[in-house]
C-alpha cells in the first residue's frame, strides 16, 4: 500500500507542477461554476417535447380539449398525475414541470367575461428556468388558440353572451362598466354571425390565460441560488477533467518510457494502476472540496446534507476513476488517449445533461441518458445539495456510479498493456 501511495503522490506532484493541467483541473471548474451561476438562465429549443405532469382537477370537456391542443403541438407530453404525484415527479426530475387545471377551468373558457380568464398553476423545477419559460409560452399559445376558437364560433359566442348576461343580472349590474359589458355581451351573437370563420381581427387584446407560478420544491429544499445549480455542474466538470488527465497520463508514461521503468521495479501492475487511481480519486476529491468550500463560504451554497454530499462526491469520483482506467487502455498513445478520452467524456456529458438540459433532448435519446454516469452524478450531487434526497433516494444514483466505476476499472485493469502495440 505504501508503494501505491508513493505512486499517487508522484502523480499529484506532477499534476501540481504542470501549470496548464493544474489550472484546468482546479480553476477551470471554479470559473465555469461561477460564470454559469452568474448568467444562469438556460436556453430553449423548438422541437423537443417537454415531459409535464398533468393534473386535471376540472376534468371538463374544456380542460381535456386544452390538454389535447397543447399535446397536438408535439412540444409537450402531458403525463396524467395527481397533484402530489406531479410534485414528486418534478422533484425527482422525471418531469420538467407540472400543470394543474383547477376546477372551473373549462367553464372559465366560456365565461371569461364574467369569471375572468381561465387560470392554471404551473410548477417548475427551479433549475429549469428555460424549461419554465418555454412552457409558459406554449401554455399561452394553447390558451390563445382556445380563445380564438371560442371567438370565431357563433354558437360559442352566443353561449358566452347568454351566460354573461345571466351573471350580470344575477350580480345586480352595479359595478362600473357594467353597462358597457352588457352592450358587448349583447353584440357577441351578432359578432359571431359577421366574423369570418377563420378568426381575423377584432379579438386581439383579450388575455387568453392566467398562469400562476408555483414553486415545485418547498423553499427549504430548493436551491438557494443559481450557484447551487452551477456548482454541481462545475464539480462534475472537474471530475471529468481529472478522469481525462490521469487517463492520458498513463499514455504519457507509456510513451516517455517511465511505465517500463516502473514495470522493472518489483511492483505488480495492479499496484501501479492503483497508484494512478488513488491520485485521480484524491485530486477529484480535492477539487470538489475546493468547490464545495468556495460555494459554501462565498456563494451561499449550503448543502442540504453534508453526509449525502460526501457520499455523492465519493461515488462520482469512484465512477470516473473507473472511466479513467478504461480511457487509459483505449488510447495507447498520448494523442489517442487525449483524443478518445475527451471525445468519450464529451459524449457522456452531452447525453447525461452536462451540456444540454435533458428536457431539450429528443424523446428517442432520453432513454440513453440513463447510460451516462454524468446524469447520475449530477442527480446525486444536486440531490445532496438542494433536492432534499433521503439516503434511500440517494442510493440509486450512488450505486449506479460505484457499480459503473468498479466494472470499468476491472475492464481497464484486464485490458491494460505495458507498451503501445505496433
Amino acid at each position, binding site marked *: 500500500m505504501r*508503494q501505491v501511495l*508513493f*505512486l499517487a503522490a*508522484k502523480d499529484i*506532484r*506532477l499534476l501540481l*507542477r*504542470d501549470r496548464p493541467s493544474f489550472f484546468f483541473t482546479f480553476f477551470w471548474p471554479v470559473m465555469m461554476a461561477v460564470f454559469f451561476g452568474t448568467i444562469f438562465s438556460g436556453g430553449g429549443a423548438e422541437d423537443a417535447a417537454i415531459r409535464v405532469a398533468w393534473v386535471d382537477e376540472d376534468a371538463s370537456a374544456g380542460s381535456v380539449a386544452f390538454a389535447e391542443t397543447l399535446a397536438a403541438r408535439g412540444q409537450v407530453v402531458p403525463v396524467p398525475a395527481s397533484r402530489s404525484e406531479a410534485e414528486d415527479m418534478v422533484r425527482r426530475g422525471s418531469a420538467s414541470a407540472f400543470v394543474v387545471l383547477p376546477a372551473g377551468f373549462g367553464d372559465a373558457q366560456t365565461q371569461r367575461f364574467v369569471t375572468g380568464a381561465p387560470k392554471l398553476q404551473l410548477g417548475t423545477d427551479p433549475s429549469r428556468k428555460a424549461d419554465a419559460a418555454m412552457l409558459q409560452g406554449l401554455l399561452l399559445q394553447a390558451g390563445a388558440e382556445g380563445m380564438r376558437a371560442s371567438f370565431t364560433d357563433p354558437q360559442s359566442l352566443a353561449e358566452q353572451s347568454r351566460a354573461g348576461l345571466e351573471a350580470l343580472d344575477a350580480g345586480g349590474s352595479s359595478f362600473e362598466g357594467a353597462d358597457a359589458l352588457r352592450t358587448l355581451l349583447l353584440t357577441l351573437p351578432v359578432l359571431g354571425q359577421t366574423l369570418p370563420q377563420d378568426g381575423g381581427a377584432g379579438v386581439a387584446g383579450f388575455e387568453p390565460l392566467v398562469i400562476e407560478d408555483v414553486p415545485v420544491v418547498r423553499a427549504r429544499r430548493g436551491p438557494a441560488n443559481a450557484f447551487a445549480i452551477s456548482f454541481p455542474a462545475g464539480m462534475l466538470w472537474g471530475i471529468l477533467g481529472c478522469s481525462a488527465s490521469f487517463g492520458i497520463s498513463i499514455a504519457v508514461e507509456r510513451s*516517455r*518510457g*517511465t511505465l*517500463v*521503468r*516502473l*514495470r*522493472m*521495479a*518489483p*511492483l*505488480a501492475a495492479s499496484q501501479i494502476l492503483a497508484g494512478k487511481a488513488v491520485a485521480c480519486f484524491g485530486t477529484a476529491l480535492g477539487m470538489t472540496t475546493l468547490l464545495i468550500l468556495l460555494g459554501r463560504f462565498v456563494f451561499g451554497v449550503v448543502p442540504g446534507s453534508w453526509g449525502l454530499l460526501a457520499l455523492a462526491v465519493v461515488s462520482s469520483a469512484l465512477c470516473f476513476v473507473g472511466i479513467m482506467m478504461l480511457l487509459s487502455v483505449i488510447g495507447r498513445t498520448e494523442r489517442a488517449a487525449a483524443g478518445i478520452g475527451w471525445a468519450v467524456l464529451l459524449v457522456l456529458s452531452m447525453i447525461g445533461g452536462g451540456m444540454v438540459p435533458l428536457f431539450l433532448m429528443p424523446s428517442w435519446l432520453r432513454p440513453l441518458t440513463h447510460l451516462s454516469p454524468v446524469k447520475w452524478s449530477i442527480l446525486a450531487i444536486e440531490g445532496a445539495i438542494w433536492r432534499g434526497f433521503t439516503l434511500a433516494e440517494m442510493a440509486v444514483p450512488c450505486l449506479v456510479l460505484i457499480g459503473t466505476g468498479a466494472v470499468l476499472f476491472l475492464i481497464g485493469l484486464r485490458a491494460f498493456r*505495458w*507498451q503501445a502495440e505496433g
Partner: protein
Amino acid sequence: MLQLHDVRKSYGSKVAVDGISLAVAPGEVLGLLGPNGAGKTTTISMAVGLLEPDSGTIEVGNLGPPTRRSARAQIGVATQMLALYDEMSALENLVFFGRMQGLSGQRLSDRASACLDLVGLSDVARDRVSTFSGGMKRRLNLAVAVVHEPRLILLDEPTVGVDPQSRNAIFERVLELRAEGRAVVYTTHYMEEAQRLCDRIAIVDHGRLLGLDTVAALVRAHGGPGVLVVSSQGADERIATNDPVAALAAIQSERTVDTFRYDPPSLETVFLELTGRQLRD
C-alpha cells in the same frame, strides 16, 4: 548472472529472436551489437522480463526468470528513451524510483546521494530535469538504473546524443560498475564504444546470434586481412594483407614509398562481414 538458452520470440509470422543462447558473468560487460531490426530490443525486453519468450529459458542469477519479482529487483535498466520525470528534480527522480525498488529511510538517502555523485549531478540535484542538457539527462538515466544497486544492468544505447565529456563520464561509470562485480549488457551502434568497454561482443542479426566472443577473437575469426595503404609517386595503393611488414618490404624493393598506413581489421569490419553492407531501415 544472466543466462539465455535457446530463446525464441515471434510476432505473428515474423521471427524476432531465433534461438539465441548467451550468458553474462558478474563483472563482465557484454556488448550486444546488431543492425536496426536485428532483434536486440526484443532480446533485451525478454532478458528483463518485459516480454515472455515463446520458447527457451531465461535465468537471472539463481533467482529464476526475470518475470519473477525477486529477479527483477536485481535488474537495472537504462533504456534508450530517457525514462525520467521532467517535472521533478534529479533527486526526486532518484528518490521516487528508489522507493519503487523498495529502498527507504537512510539507505534511500544514501543511495540517492551516491548516485548523484556517481554521475556528477550533485550540484544540480534539486533542479528540475526539464532544465538539464541531453548529456545530464543521460547520466541521470544511468543513475536511476543503478540506484537500487542491481547485480545485472542493461544499458540500451546510453550515449546517444551526448557530448564527449558526458560520454566519457558514462564510460567511466560503466567500468566502475564492472569493477564492482556487476554484470552489464551494453547495446550500441558505436563500434569504438563496444571495443573500449566490452569484454565480449554478441553480434545478432535476423534474430540469430552470429558471433559471440572477445573483440580480438572475433576479429581473428571474421575480420579478414588488414589493409596496407601505400602512397608512392602521388598514387595510393591498397593492399589486403595479414603481414604488413613483409608486404611493405616487398613494395619498397620495387619503388620508393612516400607514406604508408596499415588499417588492421576492426570490430566494424567484423560487424559488416557478419551482417552485410545492405542498408537497414
